[in-house]
């Protein structure tokens, strides 16, 4: 069974994150860059399936040149190879454009299953798997906290607000996962060393048959008009419990009309 895992490089949430003053796109220079957290769970799920069923796991990343660092980190967990779609013209693309590029890239690969994290921590649109399902005409099995594979039938427990749904589809399909699905492995030293020589294929827009006028900031379907950091919060009141902490808390709530 061949699996493609979508991996995105994003600014680390524990860094100061912002938009660029120059063109209001995500600042990918100032913060340290990491693999989108949820994607690690997608990689782990793919590796578990490979161990059980055989086949190849390919990482697919769309991103600027420096995304290669995250690609190598992803490879060090165990996938076999990677495809890196990179082209300066892609800069500033919106989610709709991104889905077009990723769909085309997936079209160059052979797969039974695409696994993705449910959401990225920078854009938080949370719709890429659904959009790819729409573009590729394959089933979306999204929001999975459990995935079972039986031949070419995929069954997930799809997380809902009050429990879950059991959802099933035939291959090929796209699965997206939450962090409740597994426990990602740490790369071994051997894995890190091997990652350096695993094949990474680079694809440009021309390779995918996409015109520069179909992507990029100037052609994006939405734009940021203006932005500003949130005004800093006024320092709050801090009290120490001396046997009356609970009562004091409620007095505060009452002053704010919550009680």
């Amino acid at each position: 069974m061949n699996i493609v895992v979508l991996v995105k490089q994003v600014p680390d949430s524990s860094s100061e994150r912002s938009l660029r003053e120059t063109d209001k796109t995500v600042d990918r220079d100032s913060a340290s860059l990491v693999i989108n957290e949820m994607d690690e769970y997608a990689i782990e799920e793919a590796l578990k399936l490979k161990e059980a069923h055989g086949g190849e796991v390919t990482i697919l990343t769309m991103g600027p040149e420096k995304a290669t660092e995250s690609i190598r980190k992803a490879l060090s967990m165990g996938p076999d190879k990677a495809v890196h779609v990179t082209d300066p013209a892609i800069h500033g693309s919106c989610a709709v454009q991104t889905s077009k590029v990723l769909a085309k890239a997936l079209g160059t690969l052979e797969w039974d299953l695409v696994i993705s994290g449910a959401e990225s921590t920078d854009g938080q649109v949370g719709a890429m798997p659904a959009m790819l399902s729409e573009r590729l005409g394959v089933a979306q099995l999204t929001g999975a906290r459990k995935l079972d594979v039986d031949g070419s039938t995929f069954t997930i427990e799809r997380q809902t607000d009050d429990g879950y749904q059991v959802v099933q589809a035939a291959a090929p399909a796209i699965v997206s996962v939450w962090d409740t699905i597994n426990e990602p492995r740490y790369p071994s030293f051997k894995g890190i060393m091997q990652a350096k020589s695993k094949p990474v294929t680079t694809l440009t827009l021309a390779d995918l048959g996409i015109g520069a006028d179909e992507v990029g900031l100037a052609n994006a379907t939405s734009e940021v008009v203006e932005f500003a950091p949130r005004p800093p919060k006024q320092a709050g009141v801090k009290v120490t419990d001396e046997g009356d902490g609970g009562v004091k808390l409620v007095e505060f709530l009452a002053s704010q009309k919550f009680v």
Partner: protein
Amino acid sequence: MAEVLVLVEHSGGSAKKVTFELLTAARALGEPSAVVLGAPGTADAIADKLAEFGAEKVYAAESDDIDGYVVAPKAEVLAQLVGSVSPAAVLVAASAEGKEVAGRLAVKLESGLLTDVTSVNADGSAGQTIFAGGVLVTSKVRTGTPILAIRPNSVNPEPAAGAAVREAVDVSVSDAAKGAKVLERVVEAKGSRPELAEASIVVSGGRGVGSADNFKVIEALADSLGAAVGASRAATDSGFYPHQFQVGQTGKTVSPQLYVACGISGAIQHRAGMQTSKTIVAVNKDAEAPIFELADYGVIGDLFSVIPQATEEITKRKG
């Protein structure tokens, strides 16, 4: 006047609170038309409430196919409706599913979408807060019919009398939209507390709560306030509370009027999920816990003394 399609969020025969927020927000852009996608009978059950919050029309697209397959049928029916109605915009809730419907719709219509919108302006621009609430943004859709996914608890729902003229919509779901079949729906301990994403007040427990059994302390406070219960990732990972109640970067993002954090240190993973709450109260025995940097009111102390005392005081005051 231009119509604005509002995708109704409903469950168990009732419209969810976020629907009324959407109907309110829609007024900035045109005349709100509620779109009810669901099993037959859904529109009948909720039409009155939709009228109360200003729906001028109610499109009822009812079929067992809608909920029988994941997301795709909803997007398909909505796209057909957009084609026949040509609305000024489409508003959905920024729930996990709402964002997926928005995404598929955006691809079908080749339109722009904005998610986690907190305010809608008459000129079509929308406010968003990004990076865990650290940056405030105004954005605008440039292409096609704007699709806006609005975050629950951002817009105050305001009643307004609407005509709610019913229009039945023929539902014909293509085979292509039937790829992911729903075999079963499992409800896990539903209870009567408000839903986390919608609640005005959330009381959350963290690692400091120490055990699943001890979460009763948190629940008691929540119940005295009519609040939803949340949990930090540390707490859910340790099995103290079910995962669907996790608030944080990989869990739910909430923005209630009041967030009470009990025994939660305030690591970035958690803050990302609640930082935009209007009022934040924290109880932690570690005076240096980062959560206090966010809190409007903080109590340094043992949550097992402070919280039960608070619950008792609230119950007393409520008489």
